[in-house]
């Protein structure tokens, strides 16, 4: 794995050659990982053998433009997939032996081919709704993306945000409650933002003002929010579910024309306002972080707070307000649980999404776009489990439940390797 420092988006080149000789270092991690996946697919197709034909449905009943389904015979597909994967693995080994980097597109193609093979195998004699799979992926990714954006901002400004989980949960709770009593989902959205900010205030106050270890404050906050919301859920919300915990759901707003694009149209452009807010948030955070004064100062504070101080930037207040903004974004993600999908608060309903979001921040190398893609990957893994369970594919459900977390561990430990986060992240700035 190569190591590039996260910085401005136009900087993805190798560390600049400063004239020192580079030692030839061969890195075998990626090709070995490839080989393991080849073995897994071979085992699936030839040992845990399944026959029949898999139908991959590309359109739903009511789509404007209908695409025909793909009918894939399992064995034939298996043979082709295994050969393709083996070829790519051989290529990867060759590249590694030349001490070259495995290009990202190769990894992406490898992943798509493997996934196609896996779906065909898992859905033998069944029909897999691709649109539904993707739609669900976006749905499940949404809170992760909001959480990851919050995490990126917070860590870039120098405060490790372990409290994403708490911010999501607080957002989910307060949005459900407020939306229920006001009967207005938009009031719920606002409440989610407030909840996230409140959690952030505590984090910021303890981490920045009182210099408590940021990871510990974050962990404690998660436990606190989980306890508090569970308590209020059993005492308040459950006392009158009708009045306090039946938030109106946000309506879907299809965007004309765009929502008619085959496959992706419904996935991306027939969504609730939260998802559209998410698109805006991703764009704004990306633009803000790398192209505005706000972002430049924020990153400076997270990299070298003393340098920022010496040019007249107020380090601790910059940190405080940006951690609050991060909380607002993460809190909004919490609203998705109650206003965007399920429709009602339940105890600890975020179920670790905040920690997956944290993993997405690292996997995405503290970059909003990459973190979004990472969150999408995790969302996809989760929804794959749901979809395969729903169609009754016969893959053991215990294995499927493991899937999203397996992906997380592999992604963070295996693919990321050694990356460098913001230099001053986690370190309080003490002015003498």
């Amino acid at each position: 794995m190569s190591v590039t420092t996260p910085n401005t988006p136009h900087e993805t080149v190798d560390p600049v050659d400063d004239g020192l000789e580079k030692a030839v270092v061969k890195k075998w991690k990626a090709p070995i990982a490839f080989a393991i996946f080849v073995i897994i697919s071979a085992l699936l197709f030839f040992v845990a053998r399944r026959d029949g034909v898999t139908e991959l449905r590309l359109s739903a009943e009511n789509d404007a433009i209908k695409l025909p389904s793909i009918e894939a015979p399992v064995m034939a597909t298996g043979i082709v997939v295994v050969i393709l994967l083996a070829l790519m693995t051989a290529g990867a080994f060759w590249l590694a032996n030349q001490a070259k980097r495995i290009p990202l597109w190769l990894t992406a193609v490898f992943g798509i081919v493997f996934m196609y093979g896996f779906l065909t195998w898992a859905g033998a004699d069944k029909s897999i709704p691709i649109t539904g799979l993707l739609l669900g992926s976006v749905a499940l990714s949404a809170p992760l993306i909001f959480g990851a954006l919050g995490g990126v901002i917070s860590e870039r400004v120098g405060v490790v945000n372990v409290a994403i989980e708490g911010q999501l949960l607080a957002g989910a709770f307060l949005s459900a409650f407020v939306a229920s009593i006001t009967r207005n989902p938009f009031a719920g959205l606002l409440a989610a933002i407030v909840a996230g900010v409140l959690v952030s205030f505590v984090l910021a106050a303890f981490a920045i003002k009182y210099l408590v270890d940021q990871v510990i404050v974050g962990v404690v906050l998660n436990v606190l929010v989980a306890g508090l919301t569970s308590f209020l859920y059993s005492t308040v919300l459950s006392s009158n579910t009708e009045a306090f915990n039946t938030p109106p759901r946000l309506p879907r707003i299809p965007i004309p024309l765009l929502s008619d694009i085959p496959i992706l149209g419904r996935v991306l452009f027939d969504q609730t306002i939260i998802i559209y807010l998410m698109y805006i948030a991703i764009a704004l955070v990306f633009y803000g972080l790398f192209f505005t004064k706000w972002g430049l100062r924020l990153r400076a504070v997270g990299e070298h707070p003393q340098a920022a101080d010496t040019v007249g930037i107020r380090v601790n207040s910059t940190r405080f307000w940006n951690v609050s903004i991060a909380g607002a974004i993460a809190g909004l993600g919490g609203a998705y649980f109650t206003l965007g999908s399920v429709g009602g608060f339940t105890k600890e309903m975020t179920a670790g999404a905040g920690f997956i979001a944290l993993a997405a921040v690292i996997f995405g190398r503290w970059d909003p776009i990459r973190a979004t893609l990472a969150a999408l990957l995790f969302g996809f893994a989760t929804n794959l489990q749901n979809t395969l369970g729903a169609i009754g594919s016969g893959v053991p459900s215990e294995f499927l439940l493991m899937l999203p977390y397996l992906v997380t561990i592999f992604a963070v430990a295996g693919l990321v390797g050694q990356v460098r986060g913001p230099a001053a992240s986690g370190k309080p700035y003490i002015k003498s």
Partner: protein
Amino acid sequence: MKLELRGITKRFGSLVANDHIDLVVEPGEIHCLLGENGAGKSTLMNVLYGLYQAEEGDILLDDSVQHFEGPGDAMRAGIGMVHQHFMLIPVFTVAENVMLGHEETKAGGRLNLDAARARVREISARFGFDVDPDALVGDLPVGIQQRVEIIKALSRDASVLVFDEPTAVLTPQETDELMTIMRQLKSEGTSIVFITHKLREVREVADRITVVRLGKIVGEASPTASNSELAALMVGRNVELTVHKEPARPGAASLVVEHLDVIDANGIKVVNDVSFEVHEGEILAIAGVQGNGQTELTEAILGIQPRTNGSISLNGTRLNGQSVKKVLNAGVGFVPEDRTHDGLVGEFTIAENLMLDRSDQQPFVKGGTLQLKALNDFAEEKKREFDIRAESITTHAGRLSGGNQQKVVLARELSRELKLFVASQPTRGIDVGSIEFVHKRMVETRDAGVPVIVVSTELDEVVALADRIAVMYRGSIVGIVPGDTPRDVLGLMMAGETGVAA
């Protein structure tokens, strides 16, 4: 602009870092603030720059009293500072660093990088700097980074410029260039405060010299004063500027390093094909500007660099690939470059620090239990022998002055039976008295027949101690020359010029 400091007093707890300091810097003057490490020079300048708030006293610019809440105020008033540890963000470009804190924006809040680039180019052109506004600062050599700091200050129209120990990281040639830049700034009417403890530089460039000792101004001196006069004023007594040593009587080659590469985490050869040997009873000084592979070389000898090629052997036994413990047991004494991080545990007592390298063996540990009596006797003896100035052996090492901390490290490392002694920057940041002591002990170690390696970026120290000098540049040894090689030759070698040694 005329700068005046009146009665500045700054305390840290019970320590008085600045005690009623008065200082006047006239427009277009280079005013040197000369003093030892810890004399309070940097504190004074941080007060001036708004980083610290003084308890008493006033700062006046052109005779009007200023109140600086923070560096932002100081900069707006026209004060710029080139910090000893550069205040640059390594992952930002030059232009981004220069614009930070006073950014211009275009429509949509977009940063106006073009304006910043133009500003960098304009100032670069004025002073003949060759600085690419789009280069990442972390990739630039330190000499260029310093110019970025200067550009940063000038882009804010600073008319008082403070240089805090600017030459510590520069080659002699770069130092000369910096002097030229300072004279040019002066001729444009900028007032310059130049903080240093290096006598040579002071005499070369200063218009006036103010000497600071223990937080107080002890006098003014003229640039024509001799080195020993300035040194006596700075230290408060007459000091020996030279190290007394007899000619070396080198024995057999003891440490042999052959074709050593050290590869860092990014796969870069930070030490590249280095070969040399050190004989018993000689001091080999490794000279070079900070960051040219010296640190990694010494760490490779100790065995804490994970990826090395080639071989390091001591009296025929291979050292690299061995655990650090085996290396230590082979008789290697090691003084690390950063004593507070790598040399000591600040929260441990002096006594505990003295036994760190023998935490698993007699006489300090028996049957898994600390032998406190043995340890205390040992510590008391070393405290006397090495003149460690502390209340007692139970004082925490972190509370000692730099010089006394270094004496603790030396006491620990020199109290084993040594076959090789490696000292990295042994006198960095310590007072003159301690420097004399450290140098004396190193020469004694040599005279006892131990091969000694001294890594130093200070040419004075290299010349004072070395029997032979190896100069490192960009991970390689440029050449190994006799100890009496002229400084200008060494300077050129430190800048990577090969062939001058012949």
